[in-house]
């Protein structure tokens, strides 16, 4: 795996940015397949809490992920507006966002490595911090968001079961 320095130097490019719980996040535009407005989601029992459910995307059933749940944030107070469908390794998955902001070009020079918060678990889902137009964007490592946490979810299920 490339070191953090290597990664940040090659991170410049276009990002789709969106709002989630007051913060602005960015996801590489090449990963984004489409943005759809919020629609009813069919809940799926016995799945980790961050799997909101599944939707019908033109005949294909795709799962919807709740980033608030995943990042341990409190539930939304305002209605969420959109789902961003991303594609990673051929797997399509929808990510719920409060609303979409813009497509921003962020130069490598404007991307800082994520500061180490020590015990804070969530920074590993970030590629880095992007600065443009005087705003700070949290650039998501969407591949990690979709894959690494699966492991976390699986390991947390037995704990849940024991709790009941």
């Amino acid at each position, binding site marked *: 795996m490339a070191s953090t320095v290597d990664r940040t130097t090659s991170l410049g490019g276009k990002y789709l940015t969106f709002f989630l719980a007051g913060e602005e996040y960015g996801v590489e535009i090449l990963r984004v397949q489409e943005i759809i407005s919020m629609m*009813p989601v*069919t*809940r*799926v*029992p*016995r*799945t*980790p*809490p*961050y*799997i*909101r*459910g*599944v*939707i*019908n995307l*033109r*005949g*294909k*059933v*795709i*799962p919807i*992920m*709740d980033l608030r*749940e995943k990042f341990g944030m409190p539930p939304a107070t305002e209605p969420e507006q959109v789902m961003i469908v991303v594609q990673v390794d051929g*797997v*399509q*998955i929808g990510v719920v966002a409060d609303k979409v902001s813009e497509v921003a070009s962020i130069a490598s020079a404007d991307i800082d490595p994520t500061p180490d918060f020590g015990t804070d678990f969530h920074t590993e889902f970030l590629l880095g911090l992007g600065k443009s137009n005087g705003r700070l964007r949290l650039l998501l490592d969407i591949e990690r968001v*979709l894959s690494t946490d*699966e492991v976390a979810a699986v390991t947390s299920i037995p704990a*849940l*079961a024991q709790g*009941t």
Partner: protein
Amino acid sequence: MIPAELNDAAFIIVQLQPDEHDDIKALRDTLRQFAVFDATASTQVRAHAHQAATVLNLILLGGSADAPALLARAGASIESAMTASEQASRGEPRATKTDLIAIVHEDGDAGALSDAMDTQAAPPARSTGAAASGERSLAPTTVAPSPAVAVAPTVTTPVIVHATAADGGTVPDDADRSLLGDFIAESRESMAGAEAALLELESNPDDIEAINTVFRAFHTVKGTAAFMGLDRLAEFAHHAESLLSRVRDRELPYTQAVANLSLRSNDVLGGFLVAVETSIQSQQPIALPSDYADLMHDLLNVDAVLAGVETRVAVQSATATALPSAATTPPRTDAEPSVDTAARSSAARAGPKTEADQSVRVRTDRLDRLIDMVGELVIAQSMIAADPAVADSGQHELVKKVSHAGKIMRELQDLSMSMRMVPLKSTFQKLTRLVRDVALRAGKVVELVTDGEETELDRNMVDAIADPLVHMVRNAVDHGVEGPADRERAGKPRAGRVTLAAFQQGGSVIVELRDDGRGLNRERILAKAIEKGLVSPHQMLTDSEINGLIFAPGFSTAETVTDISGRGVGMDVVRRNIESIRGRIDIHSVLGQGTTFQIRLPLTLAVTDGMLVRVGDERYIVPLTSISLSFRPEPGMLSTIPPGGEVVMLRAEVLPVVRLHQLFGIPAAVTNPSDGILMIVGDGEHRVALLVDQLLGQQQVVAKALGEGVGEVPGISGGAILSDGRVGLIIDIARITQLARTGDARPIGLSQAA
């Protein structure tokens, strides 16, 4: 160690009567198979086995009054093979070439005679014997290339006798034409792939993957050809494959010479395919491809050829006289092997049209996508038809047009579904062969009757039941049917009968396997189950419950574990495989009279008939095939069993109640069963009463995977798009009943319920 095939053969041949042609035929095929394919046995052992097969063939070809003597001779050859393999396993030196020559001499006349009779179409003037003896008289000379007669030392291996026969045999009478067509089409593809790989190897000789591709192509052709009874083709493919396997094992470098041989092999195989096609149409014996004799010779003497020794001249003169059927193609006179391969292969491809050309091969994923899309179209159409803007518009013309479009779409759907349907015929045919082989090994006489093999089933399902059926048929022959002596004692005909039948019943296809054997011994099954701790000794079980025990993992009642079956793995896998395609398996058995296995399968996997149910705000689809009854229970029918178990009593049957809302953690659902609906689901002993709020109606749905992001969800088999465009989840009844049984039906919250 003596190979099992030889042991069995020896055992069988001492009991054989000269007029038991079917058994002789089976034994001959087993021996041939062994001789050609068993690479673990030494050449000498295989030569003897081959010889025995050849002698048996003589009996089959008939005419000879001396069948008993020939039988004895075959027996002697089998004995020689066993002796040879014993010697080999004791580490004694392998047979020298002189020994091999001796084997040929010893049985040579029979060999020549057999080949003469093998090829009735050939003019009597043909002199295989002369050719063979001519080869034999060629003394090994020094390695120096000589324009006259220089022969590789191995030229007198017994196989060569076979190789100089005049034609490629005949297409077996019992061969299935459409299977042959498939075989030819598939083999053509393999050959094309192999050729591409061979050309790739020209520029990159170290590409081991390319070698493997070619190897696999030859191997596949070999296996299928042997199955089709095209022995000559199989044998040739075997030798072509052997060369490549040596390259693969890094025994030989991939030199230009090897490349030439492989390309020629590929062409000859292509030629064989054309010849088989021609033979099917003309009803004539299969003509050997033009380069066959030369190439076979080169392959058999591969080391000499690769060492640069010219070995072809002598055999060429022999084959020139012995190959009348190849007269249409000019005999090869030049010594350079690969100059005209291109011309020949293109000629080979311009062969006559057959059934194989009448169909287009489509990738299954494309077909699946098409079926998916058509399914979507049907849903989209029904959404339009149900839209108030259309339905309540009062415009009759518009409504009429919409419903007309709907009719066409449903027809389109039926058509697209039918594209995946294939007849069970080829599956059944493979089992015919299996029954013969297993019966032979088990020393039994078994007749297989098939019925309804034209019944069609979804391609995926045909694939999915193939393995379970193999297992069940093996069991039926090995354990079900008794040996001939036992059968006579029981007053049954000597020959056991296994019936394989398929038919449609309602929306299902039933595949039935019946044997008239000893039947399931329930006492023994029960004893065994108690011994293995599967049931407690005090448990009262019904007959069908006891029958069902054979599906328990690790269960086997066979007293001896044979190499065919009885290892105790299997029936549980059979059941699981069948359930995985939403099928069901039932057993009926009468002691002493036989056992019937009935597999019930849905017509297709693509479309599920489902009952849409509501639980709280959620909707689920329950497959219709697993519902036996739905009703609103009276309070008196329900009882609670501490600590928290709930049962419903229905016509003297007591069934556990599974609350779907609890299992799936759905809020705001009906909690009092008397206010909701109980659905009796599952099969046999695994029935439960599933509590839902309301039945919404019946619906056909196209089952889809939930997407990789979700993974496997216990109790949910997939999703489907409902008529309002939302996703409905399909309930996995087998899993639900299992969860209920294992007591794992405790509530686990929905994501939001936490």
